[in-house]
């Protein structure tokens, strides 16, 4: 048996369902793999992969593009989300916020990544605003701060925070990034390093294929997948209705499987578009922190080569 380690990007949640299903259903074992899901840590999964602490990891799209441009050895091998799960969110009772240009001068509760400002600025300017807003960095409490009225708006993962708010009956409204000039993206990937992939081609292929089976199973059987996910994280996932509703949203919203049926496949057009966008917004920087001089070759940032069926 071949051991494969996977680093998470956050607390275990519905985004990770395919990993847990593949493990519990024996897909990994069938492929001769012993998959160890590493605990979530303060250190970005991309950093762990690039430093060979983990073989695979959950990468955010932004993490992939920025870290890779700065020289980290990262390659996306599987798109978890076929479309953007992020939203700009604010409380529904804010009559003063009708469209993004109204966000000028308001306070954003952020997470501390440079691209957030580029993203929100783009959205506001696309809507005819100036793109001037206050940022307070809140780490992980931005969402609570919004509920408390301490910030005016923040970014959420719709299929987690958004669903929770719906379940709680919290009235919120959102703006979709894609509606305001931001290209749609695969929000999360499973990625690895070129160094690992070259040395472990077969293992990597087997891992991605088995993982894809896990996500495909979850799309077919969301209820059973929810049970598996909860059972594998009984200490953590104490809110069954949230898990079930979140999985339902992931499936019904065509996040895990595109309307055309793609699961895990990385869309080159999306990659080029978002890469282009980030490059132009100045969010991509080299290892010394200087804006990337020329447009990077984004085709090297990802590969569908390890998805079963394609080669």
């Amino acid at each position, binding site marked *: 048996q071949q051991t494969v380690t996977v680093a998470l990007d*956050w*607390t*275990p*949640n519905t985004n990770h369902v395919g990993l847990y299903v593949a493990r519990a259903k024996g897909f990994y074992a069938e492929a001769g793999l012993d998959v160890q899901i*590493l*605990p*979530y*840590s*303060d*250190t970005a999964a991309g*950093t*762990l992969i690039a*430093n060979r*602490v983990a073989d695979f990891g959950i990468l955010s799209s932004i993490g992939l593009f920025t870290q890779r441009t700065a020289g980290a050895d990262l390659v996306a091998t599987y798109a978890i989300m076929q479309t953007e799960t992020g939203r700009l969110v604010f409380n529904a009772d804010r009559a003063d916020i009708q469209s993004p240009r109204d966000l000028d001068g308001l306070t954003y509760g952020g997470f501390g990544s440079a691209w957030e400002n580029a993203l929100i600025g783009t959205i506001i300017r696309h809507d005819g605003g100036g793109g001037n807003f206050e940022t307070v960095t809140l780490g*992980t409490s931005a969402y*609570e701060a919004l*509920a*408390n009225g301490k910030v005016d708006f923040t970014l959420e993962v719709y299929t987690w925070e958004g669903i*929770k708010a719906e379940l*709680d009956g919290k009235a919120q409204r959102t703006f979709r990034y894609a509606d305001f000039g931001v290209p749609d993206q695969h929000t999360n990937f499973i990625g690895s390093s070129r160094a690992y992939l070259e040395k472990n081609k077969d293992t990597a292929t087997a891992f991605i294929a088995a993982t894809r089976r896990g996500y495909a199973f979850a799309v077919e059987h969301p209820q059973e997948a929810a049970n598996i996910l909860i059972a594998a994280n*009984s*200490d*953590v*996932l*104490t*809110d069954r209705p*949230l898990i079930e509703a979140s999985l339902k949203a992931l499936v019904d919203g065509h996040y895990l499987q595109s309307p055309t049926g793609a699961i895990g496949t990385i869309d080159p057009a999306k990659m080029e578009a978002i890469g282009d966008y980030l490059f132009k917004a100045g969010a991509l920087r080299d290892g010394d922190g200087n804006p990337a001089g020329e447009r990077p070759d984004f085709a090297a940032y990802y590969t569908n080569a390890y998805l079963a069926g394609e080669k």
Partner: protein
Amino acid sequence: MSQPFSATLRIAVLFGKVGPALLSVGTLVLAWELYARLSGISPTTLPAPSRVLAQAIQQRQALFDNTVPTISATLAGFACSLAVAFILSMLIDFFKPLRSALFPLFVISQTLPLVAIAPLIVLWFGFGLTPKIMLVALVTFFPMLVALVQGYASTDRDISALLHSMGASRMRIFRLARLPSSLPYFFAGLRISITYAVVGAIFAEYAGAAKGLGIYMLNAKNNFRSDLVLAAVLVSALLTLVLFAATALIQRAAMPWERLDAARKS
């Protein structure tokens, strides 16, 4: 005042000591409960203590499962810290220039914000117990070292001179005089450090752990469960208090002569 106490007197004295404490803690908890219930604040923002307690009891198995790794990390880290502090303190005691060479490093190590250091530690030491032990050791090591070095320095010069006059070697003088002299300082340092040890272990878990009170808190928060966050906080506070009490008991056992001193002074 070494007269024997009657049983009732003992209880009265105990209550005199514990009474005001219970009163103040009780008042605080009651005020919190009333505020949480009457202000209409959402339980996600501030759950009532009764809710926290009820959830803590309901989730006792999960809490217990997550407390064990934290205790292991705390104790293992603390033990390492103690061992290294002890060895280094001895080296410093035998070779003084080491003190001026090493102390600045230790002072600087205390000024490093853990939040910035923790992520690096996983990269270097991985996900096992090691990084947690390292972080706990980092926060507790310096106070223990200082306590030991101060303790040795507190040795009665007359006692050292006496042992020297008897022909005792430096090692012997260390064992017979300097080491026992350091005990009160050692235990004072222990009581301070043990508090940091727990907080340090919880912190270390943020840097990557599968289980533990820190992870439990983080997960509870990401699952919108403030009540479970506070339940874990409660457990960690209790854990600290228990360790605190344990050091006090160990000190009583290890230093029987100190109790007499206290009794005589009063």
